[in-house]
């Protein structure tokens, strides 16, 4: 299915929760969904007979600056061989997104990494703790306004 058909099919089902979608003139056709509906849209995209997005390629957190955090889901269907990108935006004040680790178990670690490095909190995640950085690290390093701590456990961090 071409990405336009995919987007129309999802819009038909979830017309209210699709915020924006663009398929022409952009390298990567994407579909922006508001935060609360991400879990329902994803489980629909996975179990629908036409879409069958059963492979979450990559989930990345992005800090778009100006108090906006984004999470990008790249989805692929091993059966139908088509791809789509799902985007969600949240504010830095309340970075809450429902988790999709129940739908794609691979999202478990990806979400923990997005929480660890960007600071997006995933509601309903089985055990949301830091995955790469030590558990008592403060701050989220991949944010644009991140200050490197001076010392960590007595070791000087900057050169």
């Amino acid at each position: 299915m071409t990405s336009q058909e995919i987007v129309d099919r999802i819009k038909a089902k979830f017309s209210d929760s699709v915020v924006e979608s663009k398929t022409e003139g952009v390298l990567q056709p994407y579909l922006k969904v508001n935060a609360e509906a991400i879990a329902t849209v994803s489980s629909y995209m996975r179990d629908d007979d036409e879409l069958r997005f059963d492979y979450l390629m990559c989930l990345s957190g992005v800090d778009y600056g100006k108090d906006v955090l984004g999470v990008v889901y790249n989805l692929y269907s091993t059966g139908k061989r088509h791809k789509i990108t799902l985007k969600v935006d949240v504010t830095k004040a309340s970075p809450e997104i429902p988790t999709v680790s129940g739908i794609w178990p691979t999202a478990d670690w990806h979400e923990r990494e997005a929480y660890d490095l960007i600071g997006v909190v995933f509601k309903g995640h089985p055990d949301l703790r830091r995955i790469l950085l030590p558990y008592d690290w403060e701050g989220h390093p991949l944010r644009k306004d991140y200050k490197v701590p001076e010392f960590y456990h007595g070791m000087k961090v900057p050169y």
Partner: protein
Amino acid sequence: MSETLSPTITTSTGRTLRTEEMIINMGPQHPSTHGVLRLELVVDGEIVVDVIPHIGYLHRCFEKHAEAMTNYQQVIPYCDRMDYLASMNMDWAYALAVEKLLGIKVPERVEYIRVIMAELQRIASHLIALGTYGLDVGAFTPFLFMFRDRERILDLFEMTCGARLLYNYIWVGGVSHDLPPGFIDKAKAFCKYFRPNIKECNDLLTYNEIFIKRTANVGILPPDVGIGYGCSGPMLRGSGVNLDLRRDDPYSIYDRFNWEVIVGKGEMGTVGDCWDRYMARVREMEQSLNIIEQALEQIPDGDVTSAIPKRIRPNPGEVYVRSESPRGEIGFYIVSDGSQTPYRVKARSPAFVNLSVLPELCKGYMIADVVAIAGSVDIVLGEVDR
């Protein structure tokens, strides 16, 4: 934690006496964790009840560096160091992503050089994976045989890019140097030399009775669980899923060579056990040899650095491009804001995702089996922690 966990594992003799679980750290410094991975094993006697992996001991802030470099070319040495066993594939994956962002086309000769280098790197990486897997399961000699063959490949790499392990050879838009004279004959000589060695490795390890007993029917990964956990590469193909990005999500010129995708069939046990994943890597080396030989025949002449852009300034946008590294699907998600430096680079590393299924595979096995399963997943910690 001293509170007792009810054992969900019924053993073969059906004993259900309640005992206290002991927590053992297969910690950062352990011969069989292929680097600094810590597995916290909750163990009842010798049977593993639960595995809690802790990673991040080699988190070298790749994504922060990618945002701080002055231009796109400077990120390539950091991609090398991400998966230091398959540096060529890493550079290529990143170069593919930026080339798609820029929309440039590389000359034919560069495509052939990149395929040859990536497939040589795949053989070298599989040699290490199989050699250390022999070490994990207790056979020392295959490790020495395979490192001897790997040195021949490293000589080829050293001839072209001067380095043995981290090359900075594949740039955005081309390669840094053309092939030195005599490389093609040496590569052909290597292919002729190495083909019988794969059979030698089979005699040494693959059909060894003890090895089969240790790996068959151990760590069974059903295909649906594999896809759900996003596994890729030999790990997923070992479970019978016929998915290889070189053919299913075609990039570069892989469609010009005839080679086939190896899928696990469960010859020695059930489909998707450690032996299948191991055998998928052995047979993939042979397929890579076929690709290299055909590529060496058809390589055209031409300039290799003509398409390298002087100043890379892609227009704002984002792209996710993935390719097949020896461990699976390596994807780069690059967001560019029009300036010279990438706004955000997210590296989707296969070992990070394949490792997330390890707790599922290890429940109910002995500690020695956890070593065999972790070895068959073939993780590289530089890539897991980025």
